[in-house]
C-alpha cells in the first residue's frame, strides 16, 4: 500500500520490532490459501489474540512445495507465520517437523519477550498442518510418530 512509508517504519529505534519483523509484517510472504492444500493447520483462538492457519502443498516425494498462511493477530504473529512458511518451503516433512519456534525467532532476528508466544503458535500451526497431511496420508504416519517420540 502506497501510504506505508518506509522511512518511518524502518528506523529501528522507533519500532517495537526489528526491521526483519517489520518487513515480514508489512510485506508478508506466502499470505493466503492454497487451492487443494494437502495439509491445513489452524491453531489459537481469537479470545487469546491470535489465530494462525497454515496450508501446505506437499509433493509425492514428501517435499513441501508450497506454503501459505492466514493470521488473525498482532504484528509479530503475522511476521512469525510469514517466516514459518518461508522456513518450511522446500523442506521435507521430516525436516519441517524439526522447525521450532526458536528457528522462527532466530530467522526473524529476535522478538520482544512478551511476543515469543507468537513464534510458538507458528511452530504449532506448521505441526498441525503436517498432522493434517499425515491424517490424510496414514502411510506417512511413521514419520510423525518418530518425531513425536523425539519431542
Amino acid at each position: 500500500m502506497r501510504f506505508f512509508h518506509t522511512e518511518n517504519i524502518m528506523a529501528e529505534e522507533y519500532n517495537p520490532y526489528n526491521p526483519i519483523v517489520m518487513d515480514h509484517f508489512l510485506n508478508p510472504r506466502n499470505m493466503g490459501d492454497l487451492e487443494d492444500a494437502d495439509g491445513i493447520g489452524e491453531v489459537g483462538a481469537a479470545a487469546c489474540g491470535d489465530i494462525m492457519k497454515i496450508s501446505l502443498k506437499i509433493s509425492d516425494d514428501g517435499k513441501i512445495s508450497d506454503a501459505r498462511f492466514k493470521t488473525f493477530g498482532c504484528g509479530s504473529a503475522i511476521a512469525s507465520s510469514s517466516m514459518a512458511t518461508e522456513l518450511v518451503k522446500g523442506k521435507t516433512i521430516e525436516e519441517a517437523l524439526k522447525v521450532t519456534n526458536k528457528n522462527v525467532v532466530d530467522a526473524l532476528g529476535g522478538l520482544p519477550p512478551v511476543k515469543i508466544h507468537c513464534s510458538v503458535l507458528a511452530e504449532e500451526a506448521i505441526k498441525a498442518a503436517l498432522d493434517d497431511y499425515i491424517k490424510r496420508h496414514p502411510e506417512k504416519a511413521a514419520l510423525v510418530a518418530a518425531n513425536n517420540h523425539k519431542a
Partner: protein
Amino acid sequence: MIKVYLDHQSSTPVLPQVYEAMLPWFSEYYGNASALHEQGLRARAALNQSRKQFSEAIHSPDPESILFTSCGTEANNLAVKGTAYALQHKGKHIILSTAEHPSVENSVAFLERQGFTATRVSVNSEGFINPEDIRAAITPETILIATHYANHDIGTIQPVAQIGEIAREHKIQFFVDAAFSAGWLPINVQEMNASLLSLSPHRFYGPKGVGVLYKNRKARLSSIIHGGIQENNFRSGTENIPAIVGGGLAMELAENERETRVSRLRVLQEKLWKGLSEQISYICLNGPVPGENRHPANLNVSTEFIEGEGQLLLCNAAGIAVASGSSCVSKNLKSSLTLTVIGLDITLAQGNIIFTLGKDNTFEEIDYVVSSFAKIVERLRQMSPMWEAFQKGNISSVIPGNPK
C-alpha cells in the same frame, strides 16, 4: 508524508505559549520553592500563580485547595490511598465503579491487600454508572466514593453531580478522576460536590511531569509520598516548577478556549464516525453515541475479524497515530478493563482502536484517516482466517444488531 495524530488521550503537544512560559524556569529561575531567597521565593510565587489558574478553571473556593503531584496517576493514588489512610479509623470501605482507570482500580486493589474492602458498581453497556447503584453500595463503613468524570477508553461522561449529591447526603468523601476530562469538559468542583478531583495537564496541551489534585478544605487526606513539607505537607519532594508553570497556563488557555475547541471537536468526531461506519463493514462504536454524554475527543471502535496491534502498526506506517485497548498492544497482554466490563465480546475487544481527536485536527485529516483505515482493515481482513470463516458462513458477526 502525511502525519495525523489521533492519540491525544495518551498525550498532547505543549502549546507554543505554554512552552514559552516554561522556558525561563529551567536555567534562569531555577530555585527550589522551599528556599528562602530570591530564587526560591520566585519559584514559590510561580507555584501560587499556577494554583490560582487551576483553582479558577475548576471553580475551587480557594487556590490553597490545589495540590501538585507528578502526574494524573499519582494524583489518583493520593486521592484514594490518602483518603483511606486518613479515614481508616472511621471505616475501611470504598465504593468505585468497575470502569475506573487502572490508577484508581489498582490503588484500591492495593488497599484491599492491606485490609480495606471495596464495592465495584457495574457500568452498563455504554459505560454509565447508575448513581442509585452507588447509593445502594453505601455502608456505615464507607469512607470514599471514587468515580471518573469521563472514561479514558470509551469517553462515557458520568453523572458526577448526582453521585456527588449522594455522597453529600451521606457525608462521604467523593473523589472525581477528571484526568481525561479537564480541559475538555466543564468542571465545577463545588457543583459536583467533589471533595477531591484530579487533573492531568499533558492531556490538554500542558507538559508532562505535573498532575493536580484539588482537595476541598474539609476533605481529610494523608500524604503518600513522605519527606519534606512541600504542598502543605500533602506531597513531599521538590516541586517541578517549569511543568507547574506550564500546566497552570495550559489550564487557563484550555478553559478560555474550551467551548471553541469542543464545538470543533464535536464536528470532527461525528465526521470521523460517519466516515468509518460508512466505509467499513462490521465495525461498531464502543461507548455512548457522540453527543453530550460522550467526551468530544474520543472515538472508540471495534473492527470485527481482525486484531488491534496490526491495525495500529499499519496506521503508524500510514503516518496515523492511534491507540488500542487490545491485549496484544498492552505490555501486560490484558485487554482494556473498560471493554471487558461493558460486556464487549472478546473478539471485538481484540479488534479495538481508540481515536482521540485534538483541537488542531482538520477535516482533510479525517478524510485521510477514514480512507486509510478502510484500506488497513481490508488488508488485515484479507490475512485473517476469521474473516475467511465469516465469508464462508462458518461463523457469524457478534456485533449486536449487526450492521450491513
